[in-house]
């Protein structure tokens, strides 16, 4: 899996390309945790628009990062356009904790206003 990180003000945008499963969840977690600490990021956007597969290990990884960001007083947003990923996100109840956007720009705009 390919991970692209971009910092926009205090918001870290994590774009994941490929398949997010149990095997990929741990290295992904480590990269995100390190970057949040090093760059002092407050909010987090997961961009799943080019993610071709995700299972419940991905949900566990998102919840873990939500707990961290939430404890730092920030917000987490998801960008998702794939029906399979969207179904899993809905099933997991993640939408009670964070908003799902159709594009990164929409998520950034809302986080800025918050």
């Amino acid at each position: 899996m390919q991970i692209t990180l971009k910092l926009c003000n205090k918001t870290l945008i994590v774009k994941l390309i490929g398949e997010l499963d149990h095997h990929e969840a741990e290295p992904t977690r480590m990269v995100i945790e390190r970057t949040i600490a090093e760059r002092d990021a407050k909010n987090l956007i997961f961009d799943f628009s080019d993610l071709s597969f995700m299972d419940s290990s991905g949900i566990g990884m998102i919840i873990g990062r939500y707990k961290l960001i939430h404890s730092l007083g920030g917000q987490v947003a998801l960008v998702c356009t794939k029906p399979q990923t969207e179904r899993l996100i809905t099933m997991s109840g993640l939408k009670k904790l964070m908003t799902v956007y159709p594009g990164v720009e929409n998520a950034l705009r809302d986080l800025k206003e918050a």
Partner: protein
Amino acid sequence: MENKINLSFLSKSANEGFARAAVSAFVAQLDPTLEELADIKTAVSEAVTNAIVHGYGHGNGIVTISCALSLDKTVCLTISDAGRGIENIEQALEPMYTSAADDERSGMGFTVMETFMDSLVVQSEMDKGTTVIMTKQIGSDSTLS
């Protein structure tokens, strides 16, 4: 079309992607929709991850998958490990229950399998292992174009 494959591989997390891809390639001969294929891939991924994380506790073991296709386009998947087994299957099947909370598990594995497949049966014996049997009929989806 009647057909069947058996796969066995080491309980390494790098093989999760292989297992999904192999089953998906085999099931493709039933001409499933993208959604049906995604459902099966997700269910396989959950069962194989359970075998690696819970069955073998990240240790070494063999995971086996048997996938059978029947004439009525039903996919029957049997995914087994010879690991530690599940003490309380009823509890394991509860949504959001996890025995490995420190491991950042969502506890959704069985719920995903149940939701994405037509049927799910879990058999387990302590210190003998766990077998998950799932079926899904291809082409029963009314959203076919």
